[in-house]
């Protein structure tokens, strides 16, 4: 029988650039798995819905997937904000919800059916800053982040405490808002504070623009970024202006592990574009679920199967495009049972000649 898996991602609206990459990652993985005979002979069928990056839509889509399409589990939603609205529905109906792009704090606190393989910033950023201090000999930095977005804001929070822990002086902290394209005012102020480097919790496209504008103001400082920087977009837009940018992430296009090389090659062949981290994490997530499902005997009764999947998932260990992966039980919140976060090592990369290479 087919295994129906729901996918609720933002396929239209401003978050679509992530949602579409994620969808590509899933379809690529599912096709690959099906081509190899599926899971114990069963084919994966993706039930794809667009949640537009809006919370009400996410709730509606989750309900439709769970009650009408009777999917086994749901991947998504794209944004953490939507996850806060929709994941409680999955937990209440005892359906596994698996986020591949939700990095905000507290996502897995929503219940024991919540899983994610998106690595929390708290695991990655401290590693990156430490590497930066060592590599560039940094003493003081300025910080720039998007303050109206859950992802960039929580990245900032982590940076802030990491910088404090590592006793790095912050010369100036600046923010911008979604949709801003001109960062010169903030950068001029940063310039006046004369930092050794600029720490930036931003998404790739904003980051690229910020880097270009920094250079056009005659500033030479290197950038330190998080997950958000990990995209080919950065170089499509900024090219080698981005050189010397440090970025930590579990996935790197430079990672020469066979699983990753395979992924990148397949992705390019199918979509005629370079994959990014969002696609990679989605790709891996599908494989992680596959591993779990291999251990499960599906009964055809959705309620039973959902429970079985949820019991099988935590034990999965996977070595995929993003490297070695395991689940880690999240700390229970307010006495409520929690779900599972990703346990993965971050790789620190440095930009050289228009691409990220591993920092030695």
């Amino acid at each position, binding site marked *: 029988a087919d295994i129906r898996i729901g996918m609720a991602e933002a396929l239209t609206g401003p978050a679509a650039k992530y949602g579409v990459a994620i969808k590509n990652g899933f379809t690529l993985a599912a096709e690959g798995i099906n081509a190899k005979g599926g899971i114990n002979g069963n084919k994966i069928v993706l039930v794809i819905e667009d949640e537009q990056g809006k919370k009400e839509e996410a709730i509606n889509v989750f309900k439709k997937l769970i009650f009408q399409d009777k999917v086994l589990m749901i991947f998504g939603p794209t944004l953490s904000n939507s996850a806060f609205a929709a994941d409680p529905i999955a937990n209440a109906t005892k359906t596994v919800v698996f986020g591949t792009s939700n990095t905000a704090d507290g996502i897995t606190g929503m219940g024991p059916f919540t899983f994610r393989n998106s690595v929390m910033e708290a695991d990655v950023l401290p590693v990156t800053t430490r590497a930066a201090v060592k590599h560039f000999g940094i003493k003081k930095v300025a910080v720039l982040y998007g303050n109206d977005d859950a992802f960039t804001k929580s990245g900032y929070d982590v940076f802030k405490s990491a910088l404090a822990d590592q006793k790095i002086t912050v010369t100036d902290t600046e923010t911008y808002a979604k949709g801003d394209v001109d960062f010169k005012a903030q950068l001029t*102020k940063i310039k006046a504070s004369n930092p050794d480097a600029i720490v930036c919790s931003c998404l790739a496209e904003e980051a690229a623009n910020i880097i270009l504008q920094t250079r056009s103001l005659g500033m030479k400082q290197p950038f330190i970024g998080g997950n958000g920087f990990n995209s080919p977009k950065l170089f499509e837009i900024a090219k080698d202006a981005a050189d010397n940018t440090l970025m930590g992430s579990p996935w790197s296009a430079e990672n020469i592990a066979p699983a990753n090389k395979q992924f990148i090659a397949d992705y390019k062949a199918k979509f005629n574009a370079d994959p990014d981290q969002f696609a990679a994490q989605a790709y891996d997530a599908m494989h992680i679920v596959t591993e779990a499902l291999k251990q499960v005997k599906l009964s055809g009764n959705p309620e039973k199967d959902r429970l079985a999947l949820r019991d099988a998932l935590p034990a999965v260990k996977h070595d995929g495009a993003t490297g070695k992966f395991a689940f880690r039980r999240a700390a229970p919140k307010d006495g409520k049972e929690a779900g599972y976060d990703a346990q993965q090592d971050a790789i620190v990369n440095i930009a050289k000649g228009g691409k990220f290479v591993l920092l030695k």
Partner: protein
Amino acid sequence: MFEQQLINALTLGSVYALFALGFTLVFGVLGVINLSHGAIFMLGSYIALLLVSQFQLSLWLAMAVAMLACGALGVIVDFLVLRPLRRRNAPHLSPMIATIGVAIMITNIAQGLFGAENKRFPFGTIPEDSISIGNLHLTAVQLAIVLISFILMIVLLLVMRRTQLGRALRAIAESPKAAYLLGINVEGLFLLTSFAAAALGAAAGVLVGLSFNAISPFMGQPMLHKGIAVIILGGMGDIRGAMIGGLFLGVAEVMSVAYLSSDFRDAVAFGLLFLILLVRPSGMFGKILERKA
């Protein structure tokens, strides 16, 4: 730092002004807040991008074609959507809502055609280096935007103030019926206005796309918010107002970052707008007819 911030303010303000010129033109003449202006702005950017990157057209030619194409789209929208509404004596909010529909359609089709992610013009389309005088920096596109928006404003202003065409447009703005009685080809001028406004929007789109490397189907939306603020701040449909309003907003935003906190950039800008409206209820250049009865 202050001097650099002033330059930042001027360039940002010019971007707003450039966007607002076409926007305010439609508003001034047709009396419609055309919420599809942001989408047309975006489309202009994409058309030029496509021509430059796929057909290797020169930038200026691409820009001209983008302006023509968007102008034509503006005319089509006017012909198919706004004109029937005028004919039917629709209440004044209906055209605005209809333009929301237009914006949704254009944005979605653009996303379908071009994808959701940001694009940029190919490297080398324009000189990337910035012009530096001492410690002050300005890129060539930014300089171009400042100059172009000033020149366009002055041209438009002269047309509106000094020519019979401008007077006719203002007559239409106040009362199409009166304009008809004066022998003005009202429908023709509506189409002309829609064309000009959309072409201006496209030009703004190309320049903004060039200077910020962030061409996306959604780039029009934030600009639209600012554009609305600018035209209201300047006074309904006033060309000078669009310019001054744009510069004012630019200065307010940049200076609030420079001397307050970037957290409150938008709040300061919109808060100021709020206060200015309380002091001058029809914007900075809005005419007030004192006569009551």
